[in-house]
């Protein structure tokens, strides 16, 4: 290749380019040809992690949304049109989520429901917003999600700050003298421990130390001995299942005997198995209510089991509720227009959800979110304290 050759190549390329540009009257530049349609089914696009380390939760989200869509269609659909669910993988990765979100937009979705990881959900907000699509975020709950101030974004899961307040309340109730907090450096767990410190210190809690673990490792001996060495009697671990289970095990091997509280990301039936039978005592979790804790949810549970042949998992109900909130907004607005739907959802007062009656604040989060305390008992997490009293 030489200078000349490159110049010629450019000239040629430009020539071809301009010829084609002139002849391309069909013109793709305008954007999506198959944008949202006013006829046919109403499409709900969902982003969920179907690959990667969080892929288990993606399936839970998808199942919950499918339940809701099926129910809506059984009742005659929305605005007289059937509802269709389109699911794309976001892999809990910002790049993949952006690609997935634009793929949904190109597929002509009207509404967006979903999102598990805060980091990968954040860049999708702007994509949906600028394409006129209202968005309900199902599981992700980092506080930065509402800081962009987009008025058509709603969160059906409680914020980290709300969960931290529940954890503070619980620590006070347990009479914790010295508290040790642990996260894994990811956005959501770290936000949770930060919020815990923020609300805990004014409330008089004694947070003796904070430590960070690497979620991909297995030996947390350094942190376990630090917990024991600090004389803590209460640990708040906000990482995911495996690291929290291992930390609980290793801390107790080194002689820790206090309460071990985990954040909602680690509340999973596998916890007991992973931490080992000898260390399941005094393990608690902050969590939103699940169907098996509610009276009157038996029928819902039964139809879920009939459909998927398995128990619902974490965030299944949030996905189910998310679709219902969105559908209610469309019904009240009488259209799928972003602004109209957003106004309708903002206007909801006490809409019935699994987590309780829902009213959204101006920022699009639940005004009253009910985190409860669950306890590990016989290998399962069951309701321990609803913190109402």
């Amino acid at each position, binding site marked *: 290749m030489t200078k000349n050759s490159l110049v010629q190549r450019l000239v040629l390329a430009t020539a071809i380019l301009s010829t084609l540009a002139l002849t*391309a009257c069909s013109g793709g*530049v305008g954007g999506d040809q198959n944008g949202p349609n006013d006829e046919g089914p109403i499409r709900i696009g969902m982003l969920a992690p179907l690959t990667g380390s969080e892929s288990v939760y993606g399936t839970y989200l998808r199942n919950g949304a499918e339940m809701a869509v099926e129910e809506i269609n059984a009742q005659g659909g929305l605005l007289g049109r059937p509802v269709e669910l389109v699911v794309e*993988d976001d892999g809990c990765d910002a790049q993949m989520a952006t690609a997935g979100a*634009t793929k949904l937009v190109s597929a002509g979705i009207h509404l967006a429901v979903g999102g598990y990881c805060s980091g990968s959900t*954040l860049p999708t907000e702007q994509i949906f917003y600028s394409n006129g699509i209202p968005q309900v975020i199902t599981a992700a709950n980092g506080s930065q999600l509402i800081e962009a101030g987009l008025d058509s974004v709603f969160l059906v899961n409680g914020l980290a700050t709300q969960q931290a307040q529940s954890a503070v309340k619980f620590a006070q109730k347990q009479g914790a003298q010295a508290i040790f907090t642990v996260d894994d450096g990811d956005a959501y767990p770290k*936000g949770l421990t930060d919020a815990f410190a923020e609300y805990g210190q004014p409330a008089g809690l004694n947070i003796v130390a904070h430590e960070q673990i690497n979620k991909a490792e297995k030996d947390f001996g350094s942190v376990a001995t630090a917990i024991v060495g600090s004389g803590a009697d209460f640990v708040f671990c906000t990482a995911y299942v495996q690291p929290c289970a291992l930390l609980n095990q290793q801390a107790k091997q080194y002689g820790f005997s206090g309460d071990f509280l985990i954040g909602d990301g680690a509340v999973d039936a596998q916890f007991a198995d992973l931490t080992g039978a000898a260390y399941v005592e005094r393990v608690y979790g902050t969590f939103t209510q699940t169907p098996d804790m509610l009276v009157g949810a038996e029928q819902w549970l039964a139809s879920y089991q009939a459909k998927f042949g398995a128990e619902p998992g974490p965030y299944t109900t949030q996905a189910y509720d998310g679709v219902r909130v969105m559908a209610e907004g469309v019904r009240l607005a009488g259209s799928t227009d972003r602004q109209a739907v957003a106004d309708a959802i903002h206007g909801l007062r006490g809409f019935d959800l699994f987590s309780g009656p829902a009213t959204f604040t101006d920022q699009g989060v639940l005004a009253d979110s009910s985190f409860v305390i669950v306890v590990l008992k016989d290998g399962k997490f069951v309701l321990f304290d609803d913190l109402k009293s």
Partner: protein
Amino acid sequence: MALVRARPRPPDLLRPPVRLPELGPSRWQWRGPRAPLRLIGVLAVAGVFVLPFFNASTYLMQIMTSAYIYVMLAMGLNVVVGYAGLLDLGYIAFFAVGAYTSGIATTRLGLSQVQAIPLVIGICVLAGVIIGGPTLRLRSDYLAIVTLGFGEIIRVTANNLQVTGGPAGIYAIPGWQFFGWRLRDGFTIGGLKFNGQVTFYYFVALIVIVLGVLGISQIARGRLGRAWKAVRDDEDAAEAMGINTYQAKITAYIIGAVWAGLAGQLMATQQSAISPPSFQFLHSALILMAVVLGGMGSTPGVIIGALFISLAPEFLRGVSDWRYLFFGLLLIVVMIFRPAGLWPATSLLPWSRDRRLQAETGPPSTAVKSDHRERT
């Protein structure tokens, strides 16, 4: 009748046994062994430029733009690894430095993206010197681990500091703005409405890549490029020939760093949000894979490699669970059958009559030098 009839001279004697590859500047050749490849290159460049006129769905533009950013990264790494032979396992660090510099400059310091460009370049030069500096004495694998370490240090630091937004990263990064005209508004030329937000990045990335190809091929053919290749093939010999190896290596680092930093700024503005998980070691490994898979030191090869690495997972979306397994096996198979890469620096079309040219001159020397004799 002549008493002595001259024996016909064997024709081969006066011609060199192998047609030598042409050196130095020469005219663009429409004939000759590599002409078909050039034609393909021209058609490919033209093709991607007109692609948005036929299909500009948001999705296609998005994945193509991401792929172009990968191409930029792979081209930059190609300078460091392919030309200068410095194995870099932490190249994503420069990408992160560029992305964070532009993010901090625009959201915290209130600069516009255009004003941030010199800052990005400056900080990346600095990062190149800082990372390049201590590594100049090291060779191959020791260099690899130090660059890996730098990559991790940058990511972990970004995860822990306040100014970088911690694990949540920086969001609401403003887009490009020129004299009051904002991209978001889009624009109309000749009756065609351009959706600025999406299509703009596509063309910008493409133009930047074309400029990069031109620039890097100029440098690679020049004095500096020859110095790099000399250092790559034998550092001691290069030094003996009077090449300032330190200077050659550090320039390679700086060029690679600035290029990755600009790619980072483009990514940050296109995504409008950046966070530490985008800069993990895995991404450094993937970019290195793009370079080696395509063919080290070969610009078209590296471009193909980068497109492959970034688009393959998108096309394999349908088989979501299996895709990384396929991806891994594909890498092994490709390397076994094309050990020098898909499109090595001296490649010809398989059906070309001049194939023997390659066979007789032997494979290109693109290996990162092994250090057999270094420790005695």
